[in-house]
């Protein structure tokens, strides 16, 4: 018995919005959103840590929901809106979370920082005043090996207070 494999298209046409800018490109159907952002769009702020959805370093926001971009295909963002760490600061300055991470020394090596910032923004956008347990619960999908999380949690609490 043989299985007939029908070859699919070698590239998929995608029109999408990334950090508020319209983008249009062709992407291999097997390419992850993480690689699409890094290799095709040229946004390397989103980091690779594990490629199996267990570290959160590649967290981005997809139509307002945080996702591990290594578990989403680039082709899936057609017609959708993606926000990455590069979209957090505006012409008015840093996002309060970015400022709080600096002031509270909430990063050491910094490789997990983009994922934590995008994930924390996803929390504060929907719940402006989370308590410490809620913050720790929400961020449990993002691994940090340097800080022990204390200063990250404090930075999120500080940003939450700033934004109130």
């Amino acid at each position, binding site marked *: 018995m043989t299985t007939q494999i029908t070859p699919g298209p070698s590239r998929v046409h995608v029109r999408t919005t990334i950090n508020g800018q319209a983008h249009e490109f062709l992407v291999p159907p097997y390419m992850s959103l993480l690689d699409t952002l890094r*290799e095709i769009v040229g946004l390397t702020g989103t980091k690779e840590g594990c490629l199996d959805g267990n570290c959160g370093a590649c967290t981005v926001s997809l139509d307002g929901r945080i996702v591990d971009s290594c578990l989403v295909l680039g082709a899936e963002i057609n017609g959708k809106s993606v926000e990455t760490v590069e979209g957090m600061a505006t012409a008015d300055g840093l996002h309060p979370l970015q400022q709080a991470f600096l002031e509270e020394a909430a990063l050491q090596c910094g490789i997990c920082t983009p994922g934590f910032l995008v994930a924390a923004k996803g929390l504060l956008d929907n719940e402006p005043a989370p308590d410490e347990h809620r913050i720790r619960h929400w961020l449990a999908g993002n691994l940090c090996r340097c800080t022990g999380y204390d200063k990250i949690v404090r930075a999120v609490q500080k940003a939450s207070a700033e934004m109130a």
Partner: protein
Amino acid sequence: MVATFEPKSEYKVIGTRPIRHDGLDKVTGRAVYGADIKLPSMIWGAVLRSPHAHARILSIDTSAAEAMDGVHAVVTNADLPQAENEMVDLGEGATNLKWAVDNILASDKALYAGHAVAAVAAADRYTAEEAARAIKVDYEVLRSATNVDDTIADDMPAILEEFVDSPGAQESGHANHVKEFTHEFGDPDAAIAGADHVVEGEFNLQMVHQGYIEPHNATAVWDENDRLKVWTSTQGAFTVRQQIAAVLKIDESRVRVTPLEIGGGFGGKIPIYLEPVAAVLSRKAGNVPVKLVMERRSVFEGTGPAAGGKINLKLGATKDGQLVAADSTLRMEAGGYPGSLVGASGMCIYACYNIPNMRIVGYDVLVNKPKVAAYRAPGSPQVAFAIETLIDDLCEQAGFDKWQFRRDNAAKEGTRRGDGPIFPRIGMEEVLDAAKETDHFNADLGEPAPGNVRGRGFASGYWFNVGLQSSVNLSLNNDGTVELVEGSTDIGGTRASIAMQAAETLGITAEDVNPTVVDTDTVGFTAVTGGSRVTYATGYAAYNAAIEMIDKLKVRASMLWSIDADDVQFEDGVFSSKSDPELSIGFKDLAGKLGDTGGPVTSTGSVDLEAAGGAYGTHICDVEIDPETGKTDVVRYTIVQDAGRAIHPSYVEGQMQGGVAQGIGWALNEEYYMSDDGVMSNSSYLDYRMPTSLDLPSIETVIVEVPNPVHPYGVRGVGEVPIVPPVPTVGNAIKDAIGIRLRETPMNAGRIVSALGS
């Protein structure tokens, strides 16, 4: 509820908490880490790894991979310069060059599942990975062993045949079990025979991984002058240059290494893995840049880890509470090649105490697991588990107070370390005293949830810290700001701690100094970011460079005033004449007049420092355990540590909290879980479960400052010792909670349930 640190000094910059210089790039996604680099004509590489823990490589057929569309090159060990059994120094002591090369790409044998065997360069990453899978390797699978007992069984073959006739193996009786040293002082046998209280125990530890979130990566290209250019995430650009040059058999000066931002290392990014592979792929592909990024599974199976092993320890004390004897045998797993770092274990095991009669015997044990790399105070957490556990047992058996016994026997200036050196001024006593004064030490345990039990433990630990060589260049801008060029890669805020020491010396602000980490062509030799040495040694180099700059500026001021340079003094950021109070000029104003006094002012500082005096910490932990499930929650944790001098207290606290988090993971959950055929069964973050934000409490920090007498600002180095006490601290808390002593890591739910069930 973290204790607020109050700087106890007159310094203007040191002890403050400025925003780190590289912070903006790191919170906006602009910082360029190793995997972020993109060069013209760049192609991607991928590595094929052995699925077998121990196997002879009979043949490698690369033809199918080479025939694939988009494949530019395929390499094996045969494409590396062939190495003999010759000893070379690769920055961390002498090593056999053949083993160093074979760990990059295996030659005759694969020594662990995950050992690199071949590599491919192709147009893109996906094609490279597919082509790597198309390489056919014919293996003869050999018997493997992944723990101490199995590897020294009579019928286990030698993992490295070179050891069969070695003196260390002949003494131990097995080629996989190589005796490294015996340290002996006094008469330990007689002292134990005469002791009123004797305790002994055997401790077993599993390997653990450093767990940095950024996978290893390397990009390399041969340039038009046939120089090799490498971009990588490393703890030491110069040690990478040294290792690459040795493996490729070229002069170090023909290699330029550019350290990009590094996403964690903890010791695991000192060795090279991918760099020579990228270099030979680039050569074979026609000198185009080749980039390699390791997948997570390979990071677990092919890099790191920290040694597991078996430790036997015996302690003896008099009835009035003097620790009089200690005798230990350390069998530490090195992986497939020697280098368990058992020597460091021997330096640390007794270092918290004054023990007049002692012996330490150390063995390097070869097992079919990846070659061990440094992991944050390498070798010390394992032996701390043994001695700090057994001291608690001794106190319980003899009825001694656990704090008072430690304080009465604490090491201090003049105490002899187990391997011989006499301690200079150290802070062990001060750390114990500060721990006793903490709120946590004196607080109630609190009420556990119904059915649960709580317990408290504490323990101490030591790390020797290192000094070594560092270089710093300064150049003065005409607005009075200073460019600082350094060779120490910044893994957790050291741009700030070095710039702050330069700023303090120059009388300017931290923000006035702009630190940059540069490649190996651009600054003098600088040893690795490791050994807790950067703020100590590179900070000292920055201090020296700043002093040289002040001396040069005194000459410039004297030229402005037409007085003798010896008549110029510098205090609080102002140059003035000693003899004429009318003559004075601020640092920044003088910087604006360089054009009138001879042009640019630059300076350099370099150091080669001895060991830094050593760091101590004492930790306190409360756990809550559900006896039904064995689940352990750390409900409160306090770390007390001697920093010498905290340059940037936030990043000192960060080192302390981060080390504790790793140590709690080591204590409760992390391990290399090996299948019967020697393959790591949990090589993903899902299964190798590191602590998350939900697993940890807010870790409370207490910084003690016993200034290091041999550093201008008293710095001791803080990065490593925080990982030393957590394993016994958590273990002592578990014992207090459930009344049962666990002597094997990890002390996970399964072990707790079976201990309670038996």
